[in-house]
């Protein structure tokens, strides 16, 4: 957080059918619908999040991710980060206050991997859903499905990881928590963080730019991940892989798809990091184990099925 970027704030996901998507993200995953706008977008949040929304769904004829946004500590930091991005040669676009409902002005930029990101300082603070601010209960009743705790991170696939690393680490103040190196020492996967979490965002090398691998949501326990698996079966939702454990991050996980084919993850656990920690390194030769710790084999679908 040394440059003032605080945390993942939102992700805008394109879906083919809004009604199906809303049902998936609310009934199954347990997000809460908080608003809709004139463009037909639907705003959602997980119950522990303090701001009004973290997931925005937009109906389109091609699924994928429009952008991911990070919240910065204040307007001064936003002004400085904008200057730093421009000085670094990054083209910055202004998105006015209110373009997303109850969100302050955003600055948007695209990195060399082909993915768009945003920074913003203000969003309506609505507090955690279903619990009081003072003397809060442990959790709210009335949550659905997987009862996702928070939007946690995204994984993107694209080229030019070194250039992306440069922007995220040297301009935005992220810290490299984990990486995969090929035999020549080239980084082919990078897990970056502005917090103690082992990743707030991750990139894996892929020739085609701008691909979306997954949006991930945090659950508390392994039991919750197993329960998520049961719900995936009960609802006949398209499963990818799991429940299992990652080698990278050591998180316990399950992957599945939304009705438009965007991949979702719910996970628990995972390593922590501080800025004095050296990055955890996996060798590309061990990639099977790095990705799926139990199977220990490369999973074709995980590497190639993207939106």
């Amino acid at each position: 957080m040394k440059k003032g970027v605080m945390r993942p704030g939102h992700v805008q996901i394109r879906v083919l059918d809004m009604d199906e998507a809303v049902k998936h993200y609310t009934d199954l995953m347990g997000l809460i619908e908080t608003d809709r706008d004139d463009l037909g977008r639907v705003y959602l949040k997980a119950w522990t999040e303090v701001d009004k929304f973290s997931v925005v769904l937009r109906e389109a004829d091609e699924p994928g991710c429009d952008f991911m946004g990070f919240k910065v500590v204040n307007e001064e930091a936003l002004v400085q980060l904008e200057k730093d991005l421009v000085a670094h040669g990054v083209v910055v676009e202004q998105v006015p206050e209110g373009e997303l409902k109850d969100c302050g002005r955003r600055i948007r930029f695209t990195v060399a991997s082909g993915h768009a990101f945003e920074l913003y300082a203000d969003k309506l603070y609505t507090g955690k859903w279903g619990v009081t601010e003072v003397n809060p209960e442990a959790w709210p009743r009335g949550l659905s499905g997987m009862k996702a705790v928070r939007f946690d991170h995204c994984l993107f696939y694209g080229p030019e990881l070194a250039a992306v690393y440069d922007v995220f680490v040297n301009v935005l103040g992220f810290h490299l928590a984990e990486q995969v190196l090929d035999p020549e020492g080239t980084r082919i996967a990078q897990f970056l963080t502005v917090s103690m979490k082992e990743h707030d965002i991750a990139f894996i090398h892929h020739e085609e730019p701008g691909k979306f691998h997954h949006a991930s949501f945090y659950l508390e326990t392994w039991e919750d991940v197993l329960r998520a698996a049961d719900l995936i079966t009960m609802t006949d939702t398209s499963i990818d892989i799991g429940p299992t454990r990652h080698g990278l991050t050591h998180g316990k996980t399950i992957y599945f798809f939304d009705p438009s084919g965007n991949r979702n993850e719910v996970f628990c656990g995972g390593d922590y990091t501080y800025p004095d920690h050296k990055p955890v390194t996996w060798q590309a030769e061990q990639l099977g184990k790095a990705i799926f710790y139990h199977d220990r084999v490369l999973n074709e679908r995980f590497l190639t099925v993207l939106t």
Partner: protein
Amino acid sequence: MGIGFQVTNRTTGDCFTCSEGQSVLKAMEQRGMKCVPVGCRGGGCGYCKIRVVEGEFECGKMSKAHAPPEAIEQGKVLACRIYPLTDLIIECLPPSAPGNTSEQTTTKALR
């Protein structure tokens, strides 16, 4: 059982029954067959792209990037999003086939 449509994959020679209202991909998976690659099952990733050579079917929503209208006209569709109305003959599409817009690029650095 017995009610449904026969789907024949002429590339692999596999043949399976698809119930009314069931997608071709789901029917294939349910019968433990692997003659079409399985991706997201949601019309989004383009992984299960096939060409329908013969037969009638209905289409669900598919990503325009992988199944644009002109491809659908040529029978190039996603197996996860087609529902047979008659028996079907399908064929697999090689990833580099001309006119196949799905362009499954691979993560070569990871292999």
